[in-house]
């Protein structure tokens, strides 16, 4: 329980910092909005039925916004010297990892919750189905799980803005495939049995990569 309390303290810190300026949330939201509008516009010009590309567009938007959120979370820490403070805390490194990851999940989910209604309006799809929300949560978990590890790495490199997408995209691809296929299945009205194995792949991805990130975070963050 003490472990959980430490994790939640870190989450609380991140949320409190963000609530003061709302800088990251607003920039993530505006960026997602731009991406969705541009995609919606670009495909409208050419594609007959935009509903076919809707799942792909949704997840690309989430991933781009997620990249922003991920990179900013550690960049802010490093630039303000908070990273050393975080490392000096008498907490297990894994607690630090879980705390940062949950913080990232919270921010991504907040932005996703704001984007989903706009998306459903632009693409004229109904998005308020429970399984869809499950897919979004699982995808976000997987993305933030590996993303937190890589953003901790990227913050120490020279071209940090470019390094995070370069490292993260190839790794997170199976999760994206599963998420897009599952979302597409839901929107097409396929029975649950069809979508079930994509969900299973997402769960496997989440478990495997959360475990690996958990184990290797120590090496990434030590001085």
């Amino acid at each position, binding site marked *: 329980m003490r472990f959980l309390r430490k994790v939640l303290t870190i989450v609380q810190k991140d949320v409190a910092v963000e609530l003061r300026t709302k800088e990251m949330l607003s920039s993530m939201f505006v960026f997602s909005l731009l991406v969705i509008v541009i995609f919606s516009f670009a495909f409208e010009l050419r594609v007959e039925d935009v509903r076919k590309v809707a799942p792909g567009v949704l997840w690309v938007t989430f991933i781009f916004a997620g990249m922003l959120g991920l990179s900013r979370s550690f960049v802010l820490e490093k630039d303000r010297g908070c990273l050393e403070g975080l490392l000096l805390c008498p907490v297990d490194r894994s607690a630090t990892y879980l705390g940062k990851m949950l913080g990232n999940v919270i921010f991504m989910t907040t932005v996703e919750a704001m984007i989903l209604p706009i998306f459903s309006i632009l693409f004229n799809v109904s998005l308020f189905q429970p399984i869809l929300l499950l897919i979004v949560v699982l995808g976000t978990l997987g993305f933030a799980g*590996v993303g937190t590890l890589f953003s901790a*790495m990227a913050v120490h490199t020279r071209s940090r803005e470019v390094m995070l997408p370069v490292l993260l995209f190839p790794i997170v691809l199976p999760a994206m495939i599963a998420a897009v296929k599952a979302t597409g299945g839901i929107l097409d009205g396929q029975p649950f049995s069809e979508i079930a194995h994509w969900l299973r792949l997402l769960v496997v991805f989440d478990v495997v990569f959360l475990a690996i990130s958990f184990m*290797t975070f120590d090496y990434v963050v030590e001085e």
Partner: protein
Amino acid sequence: MNGKNHRLSDYLTWATAIVIIVALYLVFVYAPTERTMGDMQRIFYFHVSSAWVGFFAFFVTLIVSIAYLSKGTRQWDIVALSSVEVGVTFMTMAIISGSLWAKVAWNVWWTWDPRLTTSTILWLIYVSYLMLRNAIDDEARRARFAAVHGIVGFVSVPITFMAIRWWRTIHPVILDSQGFSLATPMLITMLFCIGAFTLLYFTLLVHRVYLEQLADEVEQLKYRLGR
């Protein structure tokens, strides 16, 4: 240590040279001509061998990365870097030769077939590994981060393959992948080529490791001379 490395790389180089010449003979003379594709099919032997080495090199990187994280000696880091460099070369060869062969066999330059897609993603992970190494100046940090990336990257390969295989089998697959019902002389040739290329991989690896060790020595000398 340098003397020993020199001899090892010499032996390996000679052994590989002989084995590759035998492989060339097998591929161009011994193996029978394929019925439908003709002589163009012979690229298949080198293509499969290169792809195999590409994946094998990444596996070696995984093992060595884990070893680096537990032991922390520079030697493991050198082998990891060398393996990735050699691996990315063979992977590039595999993708290009595959594309050439695809044009002959399937009449397309590219398709998002499971193995092709996984190979491309592996290639991208390789390249991101090298970019990561280039972007960090501190040696210890570079080695640590690269080791973590090597581990995470390799673990993602089977998951990616699973995901893409499921994706492709739901939709009808128009293009068939090469079956393993090969005529015996072809099978012998292919297995020999895979072995030859693996030997080539180890030779290149040893040369590259030796090169990196020399570079380290030069850095130390520079430091001692006060530059």
